[in-house]
């Protein structure tokens, strides 16, 4: 099966082991190669420094630590990403309000649709949003 996700390298940031397994399976089913998983901000930042990444799935709350520094680092490199959270979309930091969010529990079809959009830049406004954030960063 060939889709926009096939053979793309997806960074998975998630701290709950069962959800990690589930997402690993879902991503593998979509033909993605997984980078990580990372379960903390530092781990993820270290991976971003050395790994080639096409897109990322970011849990917003990593055991009490917010994952915004990871989002900032990805935005600075122009890497598209989607948040995953059990919180409401409107609890996200202002500058990330317009970003795609997967509501937990995550639905297979939503994950695959969102990734397809992220990886087909012309079809989404994520690129523009990332560029805006990258400009705001110090």
């Amino acid at each position, binding site marked *: 099966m060939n889709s926009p996700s096939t053979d793309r390298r997806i960074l998975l940031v998630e701290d*709950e082991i*069962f959800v990690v*397994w589930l997402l690993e399976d879902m991503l593998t089913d979509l033909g993605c190669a997984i980078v990580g998983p990372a379960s903390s901000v530092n781990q993820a930042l270290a991976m971003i420094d050395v790994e080639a990444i096409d897109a990322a799935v970011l849990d917003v709350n990593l055991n009490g630590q917010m994952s915004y520094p990871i989002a900032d680092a990805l935005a600075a490199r122009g890497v598209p990403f989607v948040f995953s959270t*059990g919180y*409401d979309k409107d609890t996200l930091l202002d500058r990330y309000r317009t970003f795609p969010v997967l509501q*937990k*529990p*995550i639905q297979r*079809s939503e994950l695959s649709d969102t990734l397809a959009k992220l990886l087909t830049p012309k079809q989404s406004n994520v690129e523009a949003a990332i560029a805006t954030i990258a400009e705001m960063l110090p």
Partner: protein
Amino acid sequence: MPSEQNKSREQKAAESEVESFRKELGPFVVAAETTRMAMVFTDAKEANHPLIFANDSFLSLAGYGRDEVLGQSFDFLMERPADPEARLKVDAAFAGSSENEFEICFRRKDGGMFWTAVFISPILDKMGDLVQHFVSFVDLSKHKEEEDRLRFLLGELNHRTQNTLATVQAIAVQTLRRAANKEVVDAFEGRILALSKAHSLLGRKHWETVSLRDVIDQILQPFGLDDRRVIRFSVKGDDVRLQPKAALTLAMVFHELATNAAKHGALSNEAAGKIDIAWQAEPTTQSDRIRLRWQESGGPTVKPPGRKGFGSRLIEGGLAQDLDGEVRLDYDPLGVVCQIIMPVPLEVGR
């Protein structure tokens, strides 16, 4: 603006007013001075309702010294500029409106704001003439903090429920993937996701009521409700609000109906199938109810299922038992029809 001389004359007048007030009401003034309830008396003979008495509780609430507030107009206490709506309420209460209890924002000496419940009551003299107003203040800061905290806790609880359901989904899929076939795993996952969508919707509405339309939208969205290329659904009905329990049960019912339609019914073929969902609110003398009809058409010829599965048990049993409703599920060869009549308290005057 009054000159310095005028002002001091006004203040003197106010002070003598306070003095005579003190003499007339003797023991009551002592009680008023020492009670924990913040209170002031204002002079009703002046248009701007100057303060002629303020007790210690009021002074500590507002942060002023007594001589700083006596003689000042009532407006002096309000936030600046005062909220026009609050101004209208205050003016109306001083003018004798029966709506003399409300919440407004006041200003402390240090500029900080505080919310209080205000009660304004007229005081008449022996002749029945309005001479003063009594105004009490209940500090709502604690109450507002509590409210914020409760809202925060409820948000946290909603979030944890979503995360727990995500974990249940993950554990179930991991546990079942080798033991059960894909269809079973998908069915289970679909039900957990439907439950979580209903929870999430209720969470956003603080577990009060949600609209039937929103429940349908949430549940049918993964089945192509928003698909602009092929119109599969028609959803029409009155604005009906559902209690949380009714919303959860109906969400699961719609999920089962839609799943069945996707497997065997109107959503199972590529092109022609369609689902019409329509309902009306029916106020009756005993209780209000809704009558809802789910009708499929254009799918393959319908055959009744061999035995009752989770879906039909939930649809028939869940609605009847949980919600005291009546359900008829017909496997009409032309398309499944599900008719639901269930009691729903209708909100009057909406």
